[in-house]
């Protein structure tokens, strides 16, 4: 007979609403990081429930693997993508959101009303019984005897996942990366010796030496290769002509 002690009941009624609220909050908050943190909380709550129900190993695994590893990967990727990046929440098909919310509420209501009326119809065995030989030992026994075939097959699943990640993310270098020696040779054997001593620095000396102003060549024209290609592509390049001496307002105002 499985009895539920008072402390466990108190803990359940304290943590369960919190878990449900954060699970719903996960869907409603706008920022992905907040959503991920709420998910972490849901997982920790679940782990506490598992441990309270004598499934010690499962609880620890839940914390170590899910909250520890998987959630950190989530956050890591969110940081890579950019914490401030937000999804576009415009509806591509009009009226889809009210329909979805109505359907979700209806489905949830149906489930709650059905499960509310359900009884197990028999006594639960309880984990004290299942754990009589030790929790981890009992799990190991099941994994390596009754469920050995699905357990082994999961390894194929993991290989598939690894292979898939390689297919989708591995860039094949089409030409080998030039070594430093090759780069030096190319600089000297190139069309002009101009690049042999390195690229010109940006900026017009004494006037404006920021990275977004191209240097001036002796004939007064701008040197395009003095500016980073990224700045050029972004359009963040200033005209260097405005810093030419003839253009500068050189009337001196006396400062007191």
């Amino acid at each position: 007979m499985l009895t539920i002690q008072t402390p466990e009941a108190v803990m359940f009624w304290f943590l369960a609403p919190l878990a449900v609220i954060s699970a719903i909050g996960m869907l409603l908050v706008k920022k992905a990081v907040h959503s991920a943190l709420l998910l972490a909380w849901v997982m920790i709550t679940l782990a506490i429930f598992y441990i309270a129900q004598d499934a010690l190993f499962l609880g620890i695994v839940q914390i170590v693997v899910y909250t520890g590893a998987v959630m950190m990967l989530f956050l890591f990727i969110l940081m890579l993508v950019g914490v401030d990046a937000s999804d576009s929440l415009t509806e591509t098909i009009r009226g889809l959101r009210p329909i979805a919310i109505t359907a979700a509420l209806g489905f949830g209501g149906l489930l709650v009303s059905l499960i509310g009326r359900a009884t197990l119809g028999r006594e639960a065995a309880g984990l004290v019984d299942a754990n009589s030989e030790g929790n981890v030992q009992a799990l190991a026994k099941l994994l390596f005897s009754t469920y050995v075939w699905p357990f082994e097959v999961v390894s194929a699943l993991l290989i598939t996942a690894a292979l898939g990640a390689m297919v989708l993310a591995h860039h094949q270098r089409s030409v080998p990366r030039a070594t430093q020696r090759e780069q030096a040779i190319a600089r000297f054997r190139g069309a002009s010796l101009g690049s042999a001593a390195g690229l010109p620095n940006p900026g017009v000396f004494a006037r404006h030496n920021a990275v977004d102003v191209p240097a001036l060549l002796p004939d007064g024209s701008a040197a395009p290769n003095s500016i980073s290609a990224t700045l050029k592509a972004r359009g963040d390049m200033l005209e260097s002509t405005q810093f030419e001496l003839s253009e500068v307002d050189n009337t001196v105002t006396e400062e007191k």
Partner: protein
Amino acid sequence: MTFTAPVLNYAQLAPMLIVLGGALIGVLIEAFGPRASRHASQLFITVASLVAAFAALVRVRNQSSVDAAMGSVGFDGAGVLLQGTILIIALLSVFLIADQENFTALAAAVPGSSEERESLQLDLRVTEVYPLTLFAVAGMLLFPVSTDLITLFVALEMLSLPLYLMAGLSRRRRLMSQESALKYFLLGAFSSAFLLFGVAYLYGYSNSVTFAGIQASITGGSGNDVFLLLGIAFISVGLLFKVGAVPFHAWSPDVYQGAPTAITGFMAAATKVAAFGAILRIFYVAFANAEWQWKPALVLIAIVTMVFGSVVAITQRDVKRMLAYSSIAHAGFLLAGVIALSKSGLDASIFYLFAYGIATVGAFGVVTLVRDSAGEVTDLNRWSGLGKRSPLVASVFAFFLLAFAGIPLTSGFIGKFSIFSAAYETGSTAILIAGVLSSAIAAFFYIRVIVLMFFKDPVEDGTSVVIPSALTTTTIAVTSLITLILGIFPAPLINFIESSAFFIR
């Protein structure tokens, strides 16, 4: 604590183990093999392991046991037939996949980038599709023979994961292909969650995850029916998603259109066999005695699926989308065999799966041939007059369409006839009427395509039929031959299925 070592029947598991072994060798070739010979060696390994698996299956064809792998795998006549069908279809599809014109040169390259252009110039190849295909085949082999819910779930994931990936590897219109892969993945993960939810309820209901245990609980009448009902409903959602039954079909037109055509053919044919195999087993073995709980819902889904698939297919302007909606309609016809819940229903379903799978691979094989300078032409308008320019290819495609429509002298007719008569015998008159009506609607759009190909003037826009490679020719020839033979002379296969198809309990 005493531990008894598990006993596995390796002879009966051999087909799956061989395919998995082939996949692992493929992965090693990817890691260590020289790039120049990778394609040839992968093709060899893939074909060899599929053939070896088929031979291993033939060796144990007359065995049956509930204990092939500690109660996780049931080995019986129906399982052998379904596994054999999957292996044949996989082999024919691999011949289509071998024509690497369909696949991107480098999946990691951003579409339209200079890296993509360079990879195309270098003629790189995504030879990883071969081990991925083998992994998917192994999952498909396990799916219809798994006899507990945990193995069922693992098999489902194993067959789905490679398919999600391969759907995104199209060479042309890559953004659409990647979008379809993402859609397939997200919706597939969602439906897997439903399946797991159902597994949890059924365990709560019966205190067991094996089909036999669930069946015993249902006949024993212990437990609460609410849990049983929820369990059946959620598991059905997960399984019906895989076969693309309405209302869980939303992914299929997009994925069929976006995926590389060879993969679409493989996915359409082999996934359907595996998923229907699993549906047949779970409904015939585990849920048979709870018939009244699920039959009304399934009848409704079958009728809606047939009618929706047939009607919406009429409006399609793209040949791959049209075939997708036609496959939705066929899922409805196949559900009739599940609902029949009888020996004749089982026989008819297996025959139908074989005939439909073969014709589907062939039809998608023909679709890969119609191209212009930018790749495959799937717009139906540009197929007009194809029969005047390439009568042979157009006739073969027309023949497959007639088989889908169920015109006499094709395998489709025998399949439809036997599945509807099985449904009629068990009193599902509504299914029969809906089936015949939607077959008539479906025949309309198949024949419209045939009229378009043969009786319209060709458009001059560079659409042409390429000369197929030897392997593609083999696939198309074999599939059309089987479709013809099964239409004229189906008795040997029907008798064979009748004598050997049964589910072990």
